[in-house]
């Protein structure tokens, strides 16, 4: 039963007393809570203060973690940089090969064209030489007749 229940139905003048006693109870509880809190912090601090020290181990672990982090970071940076360089080099190489192929093809086409032109010229040459007699032939015949005489 709390104070309010205890004084229920009593004259109004008691209201203030009830509130005061409730407030006192709250204060007592609050004081107790603060005392418990203080004792708890003291107990925890004492235990932590007297614990075996593991600071060196922790520092080493942290430094290992830091070193591993740095190493991983460096590896990633090196990987991405070398990947970029490789990609760039690879593209240049492909472009060079494509250019060489194109040049080779052009050369072949040019050679083919030259061969065809040469063949055509030779054909025209032979055709023309078969149709037109030698311009010196009549003179050669006359000379042959004179010698026989």
């Amino acid at each position, binding site marked *: 039963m709390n104070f309010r229940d205890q004084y229920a139905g009593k004259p109004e003048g008691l209201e203030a007393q009830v509130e005061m006693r409730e407030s006192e109870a*709250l204060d007592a*509880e609050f004081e107790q*809570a603060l005392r418990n809190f203080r004792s*708890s912090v003291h107990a925890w601090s004492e235990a932590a203060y007297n*614990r075996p020290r593991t600071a060196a181990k922790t520092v080493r672990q942290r430094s290992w973690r830091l070193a591993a982090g740095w190493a991983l970071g460096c590896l990633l940076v090196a990987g991405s940089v070398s990947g970029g360089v490789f990609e760039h080099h690879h593209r240049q190489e492909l472009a060079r090969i494509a250019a060489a192929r194109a040049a080779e093809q052009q050369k072949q086409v040019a050679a083919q064209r030259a061969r065809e032109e040469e063949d055509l010229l030779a054909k025209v040459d032979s055709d023309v030489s078969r149709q037109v007699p030698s311009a010196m032939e009549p003179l050669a015949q006359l000379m042959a007749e004179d010698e026989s005489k």
Partner: protein
Amino acid sequence: MTGATAEEIAGRELETATQEFASIVATHRPQIFRFLLASTRDTDLAETLTQECFLKAHRNWASFRGDSSAMTWLMRIAINLQKDHWRNRRMQFWRQTQTHAVDLDEASEWLPSGESSAEQKLLAQEQVKRVWQSVKGLSERQRTVFLLRYVEEQELSEIARATGLSEGTVKAHLSRAVGRVRAEVGGKR
């Protein structure tokens, strides 16, 4: 002859100062550690900040004039170190993303063995947890003042000297802090 004497005097003075400082460390180290542990809820961090505090105090030991007690002077260094730590942490949040502070349940587990029954123990643990919860929600200054008053049981004038605030400001911060803690502890009955 005079030079040798001066050297001897200097040597003796240094030895005395070293002894004095060693005794200061032995006396006040647990208290500084406790305050930093309550402020950070991180054992390793509290340990590191305590060491830094005494290192700084050792460097400036010659400039300590004894205007306040050694404890107040050390507490002031500890408060500043803690402030710097949180400021740096805010600025360089990307350096360390996870906090090593223990959670409130773990912090509330610590109780002196005086509680008689299991029920009382549980009740006390619950109260301690509520206080931790409300302390966590306080501003940095309110928390510092609250911890100095209710954990370290310092006088208002000492708190004022350690924090560099006026006594009136300390009272105002303490009143707000107590109001919040009281609401948390009393409001959830």
